[in-house]
C-alpha cells in the first residue's frame, strides 16, 4: 500500500500534467489551422493570447512556489503554521457529540461541484468523517445537489476505510433533499430541531441560509464551526457560531487538518503569493504617488504602466 502510494506521488502527476498541456496545445494548433483554412487568411495574430501573459505569469509563479515549498517540505523542512482556533476545535466538537451520543451535522454548502468552495467543503467532510469514524460518532450530511451527494459519499467512504472503520460508512446518512435553497433550509431547520445534533459544521458556499442554520443551531445548544468564502455571510457566522473560518482560512483548512508536510507546504505558497501581491501594491502605490507629485518625471509614468501591466492593467 505504502509503495503504491509513493508511486502515485512522484512522477505520475507530472506526466498527467504534461499530457494535459500537450492536449491543450495540440488542439489549439489544430483549431487554429482549421480556422486559418476556413477564413482563407494567414494567421495574423499569434494563437497565444498575449493579453493574458501576466495572468499566465501569476499562475505559473504560484504553481512554482507551490512546487518548491512542497519539495522543501518533503525534504524534511516542514513549515510552521500559525494556530487556527476554529480548526483546533474540530476534534473537541466531534468528541462532545460522541460523549452526548448525538449526531454531527455537516452541511457542505448549497452549491454544486462546479463551485470550488463545495470541493473544499467535501474535502473537509472527508476529514471530519475520518475523525468521527475514529471516535465512533455519526455524521449526517443532507445535501442539495445530486453530484455533491455522490462526491460526499465517495469522500466519506474512503475516510472510513482510512480510519480502519469500513463498517462506519452508512451511505444513507448522506442523502439528497432538494435543489431548492429554501426547501433545503426548511428541511435542515426541522431536522436540527428534532434530532438536536451536538456539533454542526457549515463548510462551503452559503447564502441567506447561513443565519437560519446558525441561529437554530444556537438555540439547540450545538457547537458550531463554519467556514465560507462568501463575504456577505461571514458577519452572521462570526456572530452566531462558535468558530468561523474567514475566506482564505477556509481554503487552508483541509491542508491544515491533514497535517501532511506537502499540504502545509502549499500554505506557505499561498503566503508567498500574498507577499507578492502586497509588494506590488506597495511599490505600485508609491510609484503612482510619486508620479502625481512629480508629473515631469516620465520614467515614473513608464514604470507605473509596467507595474500595472503586470497586474493585467
Amino acid at each position, binding site marked *: 500500500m505504502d509503495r503504491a502510494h509513493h508511486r502515485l506521488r512522484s512522477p505520475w502527476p507530472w506526466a498527467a500534467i504534461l499530457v494535459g498541456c500537450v492536449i491543450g496545445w495540440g488542439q489549439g494548433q489544430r483549431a487554429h489551422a482549421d480556422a486559418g483554412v476556413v477564413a482563407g487568411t494567414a494567421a495574423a495574430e499569434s494563437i497565444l493570447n498575449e493579453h493574458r501573459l501576466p*495572468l499566465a505569469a501569476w499562475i505559473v509563479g504560484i504553481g512554482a512556489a507551490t512546487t518548491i515549498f512542497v519539495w522543501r517540505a518533503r525534504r524534511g523542512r516542514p513549515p*510552521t503554521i500559525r494556530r487556527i482556533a476554529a480548526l483546533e476545535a474540530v476534534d473537541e466538537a466531534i468528541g462532545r457529540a460522541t460523549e452526548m451520543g448525538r449526531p454531527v451535522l455537516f452541511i457542505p454548502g448549497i452549491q454544486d461541484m462546479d463551485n470550488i468552495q463545495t470541493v473544499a467543503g467535501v474535502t473537509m467532510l472527508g476529514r471530519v468523517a475520518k475523525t468521527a469514524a475514529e471516535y465512533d460518532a455519526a455524521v449526517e450530511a443532507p445535501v442539495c445537489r445530486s453530484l455533491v451527494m455522490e462526491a460526499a459519499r465517495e469522500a466519506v467512504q474512503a475516510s472510513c476505510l482510512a480510519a480502519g472503520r469500513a463498517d462506519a460508512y452508512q451511505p444513507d446518512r448522506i442523502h439528497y433533499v432538494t435543489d431548492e435553497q429554501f426547501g433545503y433550509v426548511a428541511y435542515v*431547520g426541522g431536522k436540527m430541531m428534532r434530532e438536536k445534533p451536538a456539533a454542526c459544521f457549515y463548510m462551503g458556499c452559503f447564502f441567506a441560509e447561513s443565519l437560519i442554520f446558525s441561529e437554530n443551531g444556537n438555540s439547540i445548544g450545538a457547537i458550531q464551526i463554519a467556514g465560507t468564502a462568501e463575504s456577505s455571510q461571514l458577519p452572521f457566522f462570526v456572530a452566531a457560531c462558535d468558530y468561523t473560518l474567514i475566506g482564505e482560512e477556509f481554503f487552508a483548512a483541509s491542508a491544515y487538518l491533514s497535517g501532511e508536510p506537502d499540504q502545509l507546504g502549499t500554505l506557505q505558497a499561498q503566503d508567498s503569493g500574498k507577499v507578492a501581491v502586497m509588494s506590488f501594491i506597495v511599490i505600485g502605490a508609491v510609484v503612482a504617488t510619486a508620479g502625481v507629485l512629480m508629473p515631469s518625471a516620465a520614467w515614473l509614468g513608464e514604470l507605473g504602466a509596467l507595474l500595472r501591466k503586470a*497586474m493585467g492593467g
Partner: protein
Amino acid sequence: MNRQRLTWIVIGVVFAGLLVVRGMTGQGLGRVYVQHEDVAYAKVETKSAQGAPTVAWKRVAEGGVADVRWQEWSAVPPKAWFEAQAKDPRQSAITLSWPRTIGLWLAAFFTLAIFSFLWADNVFYKFAEATVVGVSAAYWMVIGFWDTLVPKLFAALVPAVVQAHVQPSLRPVDDVQWWSMALALVLGGMMLWRLAPRGGWIGAWPLAFIVGVTAGLKIVSHVESDLMAQGLATMESVVAVVPGADGATDVGASVWGTLANLLVVVGVLSALTYFLFSVEHKGLVGGTARVGVWYLMITFGAAFGFTVMGRIALLAARFEFLFDDWLWLIDPNHLRA
C-alpha cells in the same frame, strides 16, 4: 404537551372566528377572478420565393375554422369583477376562479405554517416542510429536463425530435457543441452506472473530470478577476488632487481624498497580513494583523447593516401578501377600489 395543544386550539379558533368576521364585512376576502380567451390557429400553406412549400400558422377569429384551439385564463383584479357585475349581474366574461382561489388560501396556509416554526416545531410546519421538499425537488428536476436537457442535449443529439415537438425554430449546433453534449451524455451515463449492482466506481470518473475542470477554470477566473484586478485597483496614487470649481486645487477635498486612499491601502495590506499562515502573529506582524482584523470587523458590520435591510423587505412582502392578497385588509395597489 397538553398545554401546547390547548394553546394551538385556542389560537386556531380565535383566528377562524376573525376570518369569518372578516369574510362577512366589506368586500369579503381571498377570492381570485379570471377572464378567459379562446385561441384558435389555422394552418396556411404558402410557397416561398424559391417555390418550396412552407407552412405558416395564422390566428383565426372566434368561430372560424381552425386546426388547433385552446382556452387561456388570466387573472384580473377584483375591481374588474365588481365593475362588470355592477353593469350586468349575469355577465360571464369575468368569473370566480375556483382553482386559483383555493390556491390562494393554500398559499396563505403555507405562509402561516412556515411562520409557526418560530413558535415551535409543530405538525403544520412538518406538513409544509414535507410539501416544499417534495414539490421543489421535482420542480428543479422538471426545469432541468425542459430547460437544460431538451434545449441543450436533445437539441444537439436529436434535433429532429426537438424541432417536431418543442421548438420548430431550432437551429443546428456547431461541432464543438455537439461533442461537448456527447461527452456530457457519456459522463452522465457513467454517473448513473452507480445504480447498477456492480462497477459503481466508474461514477468517480465523471466526478474527477468535473473537479479537475472546475479547478482549472476557477484558478484562471479568480486569479484574473479577483487577485489581479483588486491588486490593480489598489495600486493607485495615494495623494489625491481634486480640482475645485475655479480650476485651482480644492485643498479640503484633496486632503480628505488622500486620507481615504491611504486608509484603503493600509487596510488592504493589514488585512492581508492577518491571513498569513506561516508566520506567528506576534510583534510587528501581530500588530498589523490586529489592525487588519479591525478592518475586517468594520466590513462585517457594514455587511450586517445592509443585509438587515433586505431581510426586513422580504418579511414585509410576506405580510403584504397576507394583508392585501388574502385578507383584503389593505389595498395599496388599488386592485379593489
